[in-house]
């Protein structure tokens, strides 16, 4: 490793706390992410409740919002499958199968990119072309912000998984358990991103 010694408990769990440091750190980070998306959900509630009943700033109806449950539902399934492939990647590495692990990681990346493409091409672009950008009213504002921030998180995940996919084998051959732990932590982040979408989908797409 670089400057400094490799500290304990990065691979084997701590005897008393029962967890290795990376996993504890990842869960702490996820707790902060809960608060981040929580703040946006709280903003959604406050804006929804305080929206005027008529005029340009009124909350749109389901039809006016124009969000397709089919596209949203499809993307939901895409993300759920990507969660499965992510955890299968970890499981394969845990049993020592680097090739299968890398295959599942590649699948996860592919599904994530599919999600982004569907979102951009079939959701964002049509809305923006129709002039229904985030400035149109607060529903679109919070819709673009919530899904946009979520999409940024997906892209971030793609970058990290991509890095482990392309350059990770060096670490695997040096210390396979350490590499597997890092994939586990990445997986935790990825499942969280899926979790956020599980709440976003009904709240944004299915409201009446």
């Amino acid at each position, binding site marked *: 490793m670089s400057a400094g010694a490799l500290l304990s408990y990065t691979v084997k769990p701590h005897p008393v706390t029962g967890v290795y440091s990376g996993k504890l750190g990842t869960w702490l980070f996820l707790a902060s992410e809960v608060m981040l998306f929580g*703040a946006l959900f709280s903003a959604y509630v406050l804006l929804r409740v305080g929206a005027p009943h008529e005029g340009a700033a009124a909350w749109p109806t389901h039809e006016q919002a124009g969000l397709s449950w089919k596209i949203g539902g499809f993307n939901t399934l895409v993300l759920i499958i990507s969660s499965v492939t992510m955890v299968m990647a970890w499981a394969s590495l845990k049993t020592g199968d680097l090739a299968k692990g890398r295959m599942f990681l590649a699948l996860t990346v592919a599904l994530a990119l599919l999600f982004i493409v569907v979102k951009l091409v079939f959701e964002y672009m049509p809305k923006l072309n129709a002039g229904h950008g985030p400035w149109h009213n607060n529903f679109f504002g919070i819709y673009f912000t919530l899904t946009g921030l979520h999409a940024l998180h997906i892209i971030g995940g793609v970058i990290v998984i991509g890095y482990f996919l392309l350059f990770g084998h060096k670490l695997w051959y040096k*210390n396979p358990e350490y590499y597997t732990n890092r994939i586990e932590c990445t997986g935790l982040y990825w499942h969280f991103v899926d979790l956020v979408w599980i709440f976003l989908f009904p709240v944004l797409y299915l409201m009446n």
Partner: protein
Amino acid sequence: MSSHQHGHGHQHGDDGHHDHHELGFWRKYVFSVDHKVIGVQYAVTSLCFLFFGFCLMMLMRWQLAYPGRPIPVIGPLFPKGMPDGIMLPEFYNALGAMHGTIMVFLGVVPLIVGGFGNYVMPLQIGAPDMAFPKLNMVSYWVYFVGAIVMMAGFFVPGGAANSGWTSYAPLSVIATTGQTVWLLGMVFLITSSLLGSVNFIVTIIQLRAKGLTMFRLPVFVWAQFVTAFLLLLAFPPLEAAAVLQLMDRLVGTSFFMPEGLVVSGQLQNYAGGGSPLLWQHLFWFLAHPEVYVLILPGLGMIAEIIANNTRKPLWGYRAMVYSMVFLGFMSFIVWAHHMFMTGMGTKISTFFATTTMIISIPSVIILTALVISLYQGAIRFTVPMLFALAFLPMFAIGGLTGLPLGLPVSDIQLHDTYYVIGHFHYVVAPGTIFAIFAGVYFWYPKVTGRTMNTALGWMHFVLSFVFINVVFMPMFFQGLAGVSRRLYDQTQYAHGSAVQNLTKMSSWGAWMLGLSQLPFILNFFMSFRAGRKVSDNPWDATTLEWAAPSPPPHGNFVTEPVVYRDPYDYSPRGVARDFLPQHVAEA
């Protein structure tokens, strides 16, 4: 300050080999992953910003004391903000907003958490470094970038952010470019904080030395632990809010913009339907826990110094620890006491007033425990102890003056007046900043291997103590007289003119306080080369950082420490010395 000798006592974990090769200049001093180097980087950077933020205030105090008069000497340096040397109101507001932002986010928190926390905490728990050394380095550099971005605000058209450090909408949404720069800077600073807090929590949980149970931790470590949780969970809503405000400003959304907003006779072009109060909720959700972030590490430092300089264990260690944890928890559910004047109803106001009253209890417990700790102590009036002793009544004044602000009825009179400024400055200035001074004098020998000069330290203390009270005590009376905050010229109002003498007093106090820092600055730099060299443990202290060499080498400890006792075993029975360090087995 860093020697090449490696401590071999550190745990090797699962990878038994690590490189001992020499690191180049850049990896050793600039992009180091050693918590001590990073701690010094944070400390030096943030001390500079503390000084800069104070200079902004000294500039503002001229306008307050002598409204409309050209500022001698300095006036001509800022032709845009002070044409003919007379400060423009917009410039005054920018100085005010940036003073607050810089002191809180670029000065105090990076210093007490990134500086002191990073340097001292791993040593106090007997660890060779933080749990994630590379992440630690990234935290510092993200802070640094955020600081540069913040400073860039001064150079954009329209000047720096000028809507208060609180950036209330809709004013902040229609403000000049500097506000956008402020928001971007905040995103970097918040990210830095989040990464750092993860590191602190994992380090404290996972890397404690053998025998160091949670209830044998020094109070300073507990304080950092609770603080890290506050930063971790309270900052994200402000990051979300900053994104929302950026969108309002740059994309034209209406998250915080109501319908039909008219500015200077012009109807603003927003869809509307948004809520200025939404900004306040999200902002204060962070900013209230933030003020406990400002005080907790300071309380921890004071506790260390009091135990050390009374030569007896702290009274009420467990009470202090439980109080800190309870305080941290409660801090998340009091925030709307900053919003009593927004038209909230009586039920919800009562809820927040109740939680606010409850949160004063752990503060009082901690302060009382620290005061009782002095009783029958063999007090040594070292320079750190001077600041620690002064901290106690100053923090008491700050805390007590918060009570009428936490009750809606009295807050009606006092909200947004100078009383509030007096209240929070007493807690942060003769409170936290005195704790910071105490900490610098106390740990300087550990970091540099030399002590600071005592005579200069006494001078710094006496002058600072006198003048800091001259600055802030009058503010309570100004506030009670009805003088509002953030006023460019209070003499415009009769009630403001009536107490203008108090304003002048604060201003002269501030300039004298500025001069009083010269002995400290001189001492700080001089002692680095010319200070008296000392051993590992010049204060005869018990906690683990004093078991390492001064300064500690890479890896910190020569042999891996094992802990046998509580953190403050001073004046133990049946032992010749008047202290037993934590890592020493019974004689």
